[in-house]
């Protein structure tokens, strides 16, 4: 009987081991990054909701139409090109004309203007006796009635870019826009994740965004000659803004560790002080006297990708390594999951905590610089309520407010969930009041999911 029992037990152990092998990889992934499924779901949802007809514009569309005309009419084609005076249409018509000439066809006229301009051009053509063989238009100009009014153009075959179906949400320009707008929040959220992992909170980040933008803009205006400042001055201003915020973050850390004040209170106080200081320094006004070089960080691109996005990706990579591979990261998790056990295991509590709040301040400062570079001014009103949006990103990303549990990359996912919801609601024309309600509900759902993961409510007992 004993052997029978043994075999039953070993069978069970085996089953358990198989389950373990699965759960060892899958379960931690679901635990840490479960929110990525939500993000994918949202992307799918908004892709379906914004699936519409797309009319290509720009130079690619121009070349395509040119080839289409050449295919049908060969080098004998004599083409009238009509578009609006917008930058996109100009790119479209220019590329169209260039390609046609390159292929050996004749371009009679290129018009970038309103229907009246088109009418003038057609009259001119018929007066001079030039008969076009093709009309090249785009989606908008093809609908102008002016072409039907003249015999010269009434019978003409007209060519326009081929339309196709694709979600507005998934257009490259839209996705880039979403990522670019999220970058500032996402960068600040890295620091917030670290703070929350230690079991704390940092409410001062929003004010630090304003402070950094004001400090660096003031430095450029008052000491570097404003718009005439050089690259060296811009670098100096950027560092000054970031270091100021790092010092404020250090102050947060000192008050929390050495003076033993609760993080919520300390950073609430510092939030008010930093905001007040920013308003005082800027005398309540926006500071737009900035050099072009200053706008590169927030507005420039490297090989087509906006700098804020690149910076965000880079910082998340660094943060991921910091939290998963370094002693410091290990200590942050240890402090958050059990401060007393961490201290008794020899974790240097004070330096670690001060370091975490300094990082948070530093990244808030960087966020402030990027924001002011994007918006081309320093302003004490920047960053208002950012702390809440950033905390929401961290929480939606699966980090527990109780500390010790969560992942930096989860926060990136959280930030994007919020951004995608906002963007998707804009694209589907949901009004801004309802948007707020939806975002609040998303936040509550995220926290509720967190408690589900933890099992039941943690009731505090007396012992």
């Amino acid at each position, binding site marked *: 009987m004993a052997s029978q029992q043994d075999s039953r037990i070993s069978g069970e152990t085996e089953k358990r081991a198989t389950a373990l092998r699965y759960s060892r990889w899958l379960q931690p992934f679901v635990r840490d990054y479960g929110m990525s499924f939500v993000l994918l779901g949202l992307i799918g949802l908004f892709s379906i909701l914004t699936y519409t007809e797309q009319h290509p514009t720009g130079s690619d569309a121009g070349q395509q139409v040119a080839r289409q005309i050449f295919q049908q009419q060969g080098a004998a084609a004599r083409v009238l090109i009509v578009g609006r005076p917008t930058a996109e249409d100009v790119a479209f018509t220019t590329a169209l004309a260039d390609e046609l000439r390159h292929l050996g066809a004749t371009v009679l006229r290129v018009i970038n203007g309103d229907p009246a301009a088109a009418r003038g051009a057609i009259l001119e053509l018929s007066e001079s006796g030039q008969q076009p063989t093709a009309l090249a238009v785009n989606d908008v100009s093809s609908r102008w009635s002016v072409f039907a009014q003249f015999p010269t153009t009434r019978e003409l075959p007209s060519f326009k870019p081929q339309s196709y179906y694709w979600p507005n949400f998934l257009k490259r320009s839209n996705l880039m826009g979403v990522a670019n707008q999220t970058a500032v929040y996402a960068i600040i959220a890295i620091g917030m994740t670290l703070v929350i992992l230690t079991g704390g909170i940092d409410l001062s980040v929003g004010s630090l965004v304003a402070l950094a933008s004001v400090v660096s803009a003031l430095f450029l205006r008052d000491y570097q000659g404003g718009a005439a400042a050089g690259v060296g001055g811009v670098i100096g201003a950027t560092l000054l803004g970031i270091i100021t915020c790092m010092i404020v973050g250090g102050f947060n850390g000192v008050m929390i560790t050495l003076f033993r004040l609760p993080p919520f209170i300390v950073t609430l106080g510092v939030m008010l002080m930093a905001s007040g200081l920013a308003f005082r320094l800027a005398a309540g006004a926006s500071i737009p006297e900035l050099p072009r070089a200053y706008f590169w960080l927030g507005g420039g691109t490297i090989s087509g990708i906006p700098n804020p996005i690149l910076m965000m990706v880079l910082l998340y990579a660094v943060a991921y390594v910091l939290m998963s591979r370094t*002693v410091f990261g290990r200590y942050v998790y240890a402090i958050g*999951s*059990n401060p007393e*056990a961490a201290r008794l295991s020899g*974790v240097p509590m004070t330096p670690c905590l001060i370091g975490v709040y300094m990082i948070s301040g530093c990244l808030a400062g960087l966020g402030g610089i990027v924001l002011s570079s994007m918006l081309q001014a320093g302003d004490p009103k920047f960053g208002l309520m950012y702390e809440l949006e950033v905390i929401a990103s961290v929480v939606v990303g699966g980090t527990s407010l109780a500390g010790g549990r969560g992942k930096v990359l989860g926060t990136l996912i959280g930030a994007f969930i919020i951004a995608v919801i906002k963007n998707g609601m804009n694209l589907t024309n949901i009004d801004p009041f309802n948007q707020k309600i939806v975002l609040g509900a998303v936040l509550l759902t995220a926290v509720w999911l967190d408690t589900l993961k933890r099992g039941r409510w943690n009731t505090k007992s007396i012992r």
Partner: protein
Amino acid sequence: MSDSIAPQTGLVPLLRMRSVSKSFPGVQALRSVELTVRSGEVHALLGENGAGKSTLIKILGGVHQPDDGTIEIAGQSVAFTSPRAALDAGIGIIYQEFNLAPSLTATENLFLGQERSTWGFLRLQQEQDRAQDLFSRLGVPIPLDVPCHELSIAQQQIVEIAKALTKEARLLVMDEPTTALTPAEVDRLLAVICELRTQGLGVIYISHRLDEVEQIADRATILRDGQYVGTLARSELERQTMIEWMVGRQIENEFPKQAVAAGAVRLEVKNLRRGAAVRDVSFQVRAGEVLGITGLVGAGRTEVARLIFGADRRDSGSVHLDGRTLSIRSPRDAIREGICLLTEDRKHQGLLLERSVRENFGLPNLREFSTGGFVRQRQEHLAWSGFREKLQIKVPHAETLATHLSGGNQQKVVLAKWLQANAEVIMFDEPTRGIDVGAKYEIYLLINQLAHAGKAIIMISSELPEVLGMSDRILVMHEGWITGEVLDPSRATQAQIMQYAIG
């Protein structure tokens, strides 16, 4: 005493659980377990950790539903779908972690959720009277207007019992009620339980302390690995039998003490003081020596260890290791000097429960396991595997969360991390609290090994048999002072130590 109210056979038992089975994903927690409790009986429920006691109690309390088997209360078949249902059927469960609101008074806690009121206004006097009445019935006076967190653990326990009585409990379940009590408080609690028994309640008593079971239980049911081993009658309740049934094999010697010739003085503590908790404590520990420190809860034993370890700041005094004076201002300093502390409360002070065992093991050793701030995880993993072998720690893999280990294995993980840190002075605070018999034995063997290796060992414990069985020398503390020293524990008695401990 218990003879006069010996349970009469023939009567319908208060509780009968028949062939109860329960499995969780991957684990068969209970397999056809039987438990019968009569009115006016104290029934001990025994078993090692993981034997299924908690699961059985949770089924009784309506937290879990059994897969199979029946539950009868006073002959009526019941199926509890919620804790509420169990409560309504007269089952009161007092868990190790109390369910009291710390800032409310005893009375407020008693009537929490069932306040006596008219039109929403509390009938305070009626509540007071009822509370007074209950506590006098239990024979223990409890101050009624003091917030519960200001009561002692023992008093809080009485409040919990009274709370169960306000809900008309007929069957009271007590899970490890005496772990945090002083001997005097234990006696008082046992008296209260006897009182409840004479009033006709059934009591299920769960404890690792077999002397208490011998003293109070009418019968005992023993579980092992989720299976029903058997029920012992009053006349069969002997320590040896209970242990053998629990462990499933014979244990010849509970305390495998090996004598080691003590070497030179390693740790010396001079005139250690901290407020009223530690007053002028001096002692020495030699290489290979196990120094037992005992005394009542609150006598200052743990505090002494925390002062040596730098966890609290000392008012005065000095600590010397191998003749050198150490300046220890934080646990970090102590660890660097090779001093470590295995705290009594592993869950709150010893381990990061939500982190992996590998991380727990590495935490004090990251200086060694890192280059330029980066953790060398392979090296860490390798060192961990070495200790897992050496200490025979049972874990599925290195990434298992510490919270999923049994108490004995948790203690071994803590020990492993300190051994890796090259600890020369090892202070155990209640090394076997909450650990079952089999694992206890292994911990004792490890203590022997450490002594052989020439470490200086301090073992703080309230379990007198353990202190007597495992120490080379014993210090007894009372209210912050060392009040006695026992040079030859093998000839000393518990009574002798109690003399010192009382002061």
